[in-house]
């Protein structure tokens, strides 16, 4: 057990339905681990998973156990098996229990848990802090203490309205368990995992180095997730900014092209949302209310609705087109070309005419009276801010959360609180009696100060992207370009700094 190369083995134990599997889901960042439901005895076997470091080395084994439900019965039976005056030590008594016939009978589930705890380095005792402290919990802790392993109580659902953390801390202190850790599996604190590992390192000091390494690794992973997320958003923004659809001056043609422009942008945004969810290892169910392209879209969430911009606090200028043309801009002659002169010069010096011919084609189109439709600046800002808000919400979301992220949660808190009574739209498999809704609202509205616009650096880069229709992967004729990649990288950094 003191072998440093062996992974640290942890059993996750607790009363039934306190969120043991949820804790594993959140620690593993895996929504599909085990089975979670608001009923007793959902997990009926010991299911294990190991955390790997960057180098693929197993560093921590987590064992999800069934609930310890009948500790009183087990203790009664233990007294019967080996009376207390016989002076066996705890583990010996537990072993006697495991060898008894009831280990396969009435106490099968409890014995599974105790067997797992005996084999591990430490136990995480998960507590639903919304439950009152009862003697049965003390009995469970007594039973676990008899296994002779360190116990770290993990206070779950601490962000729920009904949680009574103080009573639990007091009760645990009376049992000699002074080190506890708050870890809300639905809306974990940003550094919740780190705190948990720190406490564990105090208990398992011979594993402290490995736990520190794991902690650093988790920090790295989080950073990388954030970087990847901003990169995805930057890709989206460049695609949308560079999108440029030629169209004639005919109003009906313009309206059709505008619809096409919107559809492409919406589809692209949807792709980005899915990619973000995937990166954060959430299923598509997590964010189902996002407006799907053109059908059944929610009025308040439509990207091209001026109202959506206002709710996000984006300044809407007087010139903003409304109605059929909302969100799209007719590019006036100077718009694209003035930005492109540097590129044109470069193309000429480079000795090639292909770039120039493209410009030429566009120029001829202009002279023939055609225009080009592009996505409006405020819409780009809305796109970016919305995705950043989604990233923030995902950062603060545990993989145990079963309620989908509501679209309204993505609205940063304005002067009046964001609508909180919107929780009824989700499926009925909520984890608890409503405390979770509050927890998630909290989680989504904690970011320090909401952005009203994308940073000026990003605006500058978007301006550059506007001059390159070939950069848009949703455009007419996308061409890979090293400069585009560099720009996306730089924009991702700027967004990362803004996050």
């Amino acid at each position, binding site marked *: 057990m003191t072998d440093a190369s062996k992974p640290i083995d942890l059993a996750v134990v607790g009363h039934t*339905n306190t969120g043991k599997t949820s804790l594993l889901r959140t620690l593993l960042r895996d929504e599909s681990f085990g089975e979670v439901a608001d009923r007793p005895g959902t997990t009926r076997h010991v299911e*294990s998973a190991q955390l*790997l470091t960057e180098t693929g080395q197993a560093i921590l084994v987590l064992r999800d156990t069934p609930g310890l439900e009948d500790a009183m019965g087990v203790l009664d039976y233990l007294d019967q098996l080996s009376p207390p005056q016989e002076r066996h030590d705890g583990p010996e008594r537990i072993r006697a229990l495991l060898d008894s016939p009831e280990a396969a009978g009435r106490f099968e589930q409890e014995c599974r848990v105790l067997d797992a705890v005996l084999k591990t380095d430490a136990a995480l005792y998960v507590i639903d802090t919304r439950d009152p402290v009862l003697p049965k919990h003390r009995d469970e802790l007594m039973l676990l203490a008899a296994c002779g392993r360190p116990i770290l109580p993990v206070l779950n659902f601490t962000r729920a309205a009904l949680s009574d953390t103080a009573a639990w801390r007091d009760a645990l202190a009376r049992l000699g368990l002074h080190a506890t850790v708050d870890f809300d599996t639905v809306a974990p604190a940003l550094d919740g995992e780190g705190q948990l590992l720190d406490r564990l390192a105090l208990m398992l000091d011979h594993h402290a180095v490995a736990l520190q390494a794991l902690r650093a690794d988790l920090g790295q992973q989080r950073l990388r997730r954030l970087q990847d997320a901003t990169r995805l958003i930057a890709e989206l923004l460049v695609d949308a900014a560079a999108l440029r659809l030629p169209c004639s001056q005919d109003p009906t043609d313009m309206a059709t092209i505008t619809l096409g422009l919107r559809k492409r942008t919406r589809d692209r945004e949807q792709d980005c949302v899915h990619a973000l969810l995937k990166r954060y290892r959430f299923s598509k169910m997590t964010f189902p209310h996002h407006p799907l392209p053109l059908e059944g879209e929610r009025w308040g969430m439509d990207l091209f609705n001026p109202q959506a911009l206002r709710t996000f606090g984006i300044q809407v200028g007087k010139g903003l087109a409304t109605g059929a043309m909302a969100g799209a801009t007719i590019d006036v002659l100077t718009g694209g070309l003035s930005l492109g002169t540097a590129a044109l010069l470069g193309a000429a010096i480079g000795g090639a005419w292909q770039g120039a011919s493209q410009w030429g084609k566009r120029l001829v189109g202009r002279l023939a009276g055609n225009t080009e439709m592009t996505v409006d600046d405020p819409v780009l800002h809305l796109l970016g801010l919305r995705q950043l808000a989604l990233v923030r919400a995902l950062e603060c979301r545990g993989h145990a959360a079963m309620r989908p992220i509501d679209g309204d949660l993505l609205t940063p808190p304005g002067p009046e609180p964001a609508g909180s009574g919107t929780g009824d739209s989700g499926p009925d498999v909520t984890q608890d009696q409503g405390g979770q809704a509050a927890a998630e609202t909290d989680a989504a509205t904690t970011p320090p100060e909401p952005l009203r616009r994308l940073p000026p650096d990003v605006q500058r880069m978007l301006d550059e992207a506007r001059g390159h229709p070939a950069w848009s992967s949703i455009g007419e004729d996308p061409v890979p370009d090293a400069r585009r990649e560099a720009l996306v990288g730089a924009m991702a950094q700027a967004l990362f700094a803004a996050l």
Partner: protein
Amino acid sequence: MRSRPLSTADLAASPLLQYWQAEAVRLREAHWGPLEDRAACQAALRLPADLQGRILARAAWLAEHGELHDRLIQWSVGARWALAILWLCACLAGIGTAAAVLGPGQVNLALALLGMLGLHALTFLIWLAGWLPGLPDSTALSRLWLWLTQRLVRGPDAALAAQAFLSLLGRARSWKMAIGLISHGAWTAAFLGAVPTLLLLLSARRYTFHWETTLLSPDAFVSVTQALGWLPGLLGFPAPDDAQVAASLGVQPLAAGVQADWSLWLVGSVIAWGLLPRLLALAVCILCLRRRLAGLAVDPGLPGWLDLRERLMPTHVSLGIDRPAPAEGRAADPAVPPPTAHGGRSAVLAYELGPDLAWPPDGLPPGVADLGRCNSRADRARIRGLLNPPPAHLLLVCDARLTPDRAAAAWLDELRRSCPDLRVLCLGGSPQRVQAWQDLLSQQAVAQAVSLDSWLEHIGTPPP
């Protein structure tokens, strides 16, 4: 499908090909959606944990089990042939130019030099200008190339090969080097064709050299000759002296030695100002290209690779379960003989009721005994004593905010066996929790009371 195992020797074969394959697979997946890659990922996962290595291995597997690998090889062979043909053409053009410049016998030095070096100097200067800071990487040239390949080669994969190569070079910022390699190579070939031709023609035929001018003064030609002759002079090529230059106006015939000097000056100028700079630039391009290509790396943040991290570098693996769970808890044995009641006593009992719920309840008639709260093992022992003899009617009040557990089930079973008429009242709780309690009660065949008053009516003791 070939089943060639993916050995490490294979992987080490050609790094450039690996990156190229990976880029082609990435572009294809980014444009046309993900490929079926389960076997590829499994093959990659067998390698040591290194994201880049695994991405490359996955791409190599996919490329080799599709047509992509062959297409890339085909394309690269084609590209090499094209390059060879281009260079050969350049060489022939060099020979032709040299022959044309010397002409039938009378050589105008200024025109000959301009013909040999004019275009070369112009393109070389343009290439150098491309290095000026602030200019965009010559994407226009790459677009031209891509545009050409898209029209020359049919099929999406072929275009993909070129696109991937381009994108790879672009990311390594070595596109200019590659273009330089091609153009400097062509010019070198041209000069390598031209110089021997010059030497051959100058050795085998008799030429007379002169220069002409209408606008310029003869002194200008003298100084130009000296300036151009400086570098060849360093290499050992003789240059005509000032008097000879001045004498070479083509008015009077020159001595044979002067003609030989002029021919060597011409050859020297072509070598020193044409062949040499191109060779140098070619060497620089090759060196830089090598270094840049050696530094190629996979950027895992690029679209198409970004979501590979989770699959190729799993942060956790499942270890499975210890053993299958036993069958669900069995339903209560209905064949339990109902215990006989002793007297008409009735009692109520609180089971793990939250501390916020008052006990005993208000409105409990004096005829109904309160057995207290049943929370701990001591409580249970006390209550077991009180239940002997059992009351005729027992109401167990439980807190439905808590999740029913096996301890509750066992306790209900125990009570059911000792009390003839056991009923359970659930207080509070969400619909799901109440449902869980109801499930437990029906499993234990225990009747539920709707409220305290209805239970009191049931036992025939009206509430006070």
